[in-house]
């Protein structure tokens, strides 16, 4: 009963958020809707017992990625419909009928592909019995420290690379005359 409610709420939040991301024309709003969608995904994780992943989703996405996106939106001029000094359209560029038509076409094709792949799954897994939810933290920790130790260590290198790379890219640069 409650499980289904939680699932439904999360699903509605996820899909509604995603749909709103598609629909809205305001970049800042679409970031907020993305937050809602990701929040819903966290709920979906929680529904199938992936409690640690749900929390990670909250920490990394709600706290991290969305804030980063919001900052990036601000750094590139907010979401006002300004025209910059070169006369270029500065922001928006949120698509028009033509691009949405193309996107719709692609989406149809993609959904054909995915539906074809998923058809068998939908047929065979119609009635699954939910296994009991278990605490995942210890298991995940054990996996990370044993089987996936290499991935764990390499991810630190990946993060280091991302940190250094992004810092170098976005660092303010001195102009020539100084």
């Amino acid at each position: 009963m409650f499980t289904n409610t939680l699932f439904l709420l999360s699903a509605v939040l996820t899909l509604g958020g995603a749909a709103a991301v598609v629909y809205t024309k305001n970049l800042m709003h679409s970031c907020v809707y993305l937050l809602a969608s990701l929040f819903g995904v966290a709920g979906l994780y929680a529904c199938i017992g992936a409690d640690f992943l749900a929390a990670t989703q909250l920490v990394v996405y709600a706290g991290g990625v969305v804030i980063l996106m919001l900052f990036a939106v601000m750094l590139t001029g907010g979401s006002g419909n300004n025209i910059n000094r070169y006369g270029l359209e500065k922001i928006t560029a949120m698509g028009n009928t033509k691009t949405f038509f193309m996107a719709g076409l692609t989406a149809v094709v993609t959904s054909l592909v995915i539906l074809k792949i998923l058809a068998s799954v939908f047929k065979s897994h119609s009635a699954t019995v939910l296994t009991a939810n278990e605490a995942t933290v210890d298991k995940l920790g054990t996996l990370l420290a044993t089987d996936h130790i290499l991935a764990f260590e390499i991810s630190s290198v990946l993060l280091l690379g991302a940190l250094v790379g992004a810092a170098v890219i976005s660092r303010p640069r001195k102009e020539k005359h100084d």
Partner: protein
Amino acid sequence: MISLGSYLAISFALFISGIIVMIARKNIIAMLLGIELILNASALNFVAYTKFSNNNLDGHIMSLFIIVIAAAEAAVGLGIVIRFFQLRESIHIDDAATLQN
């Protein structure tokens, strides 16, 4: 109500939304939003399959690293966007079509 099918359907919808956002938007940041949606859809798939097939946690690990990579990707991607904006005063994707200057 909670079944593999419903999870796959949700992740399918998320994925399609991501595709649409990625192609329809001409704003680089908005495209990155689409990429986040796509990555989330795939991560959700991994967890769902893990739950409904053998219930070992490999899918969780995979999703965990997808999240890690998504974060790194967002950091670097947005860094590039900001740098590009500093150079061009634009975050229109088609302004990024030239290879030089």
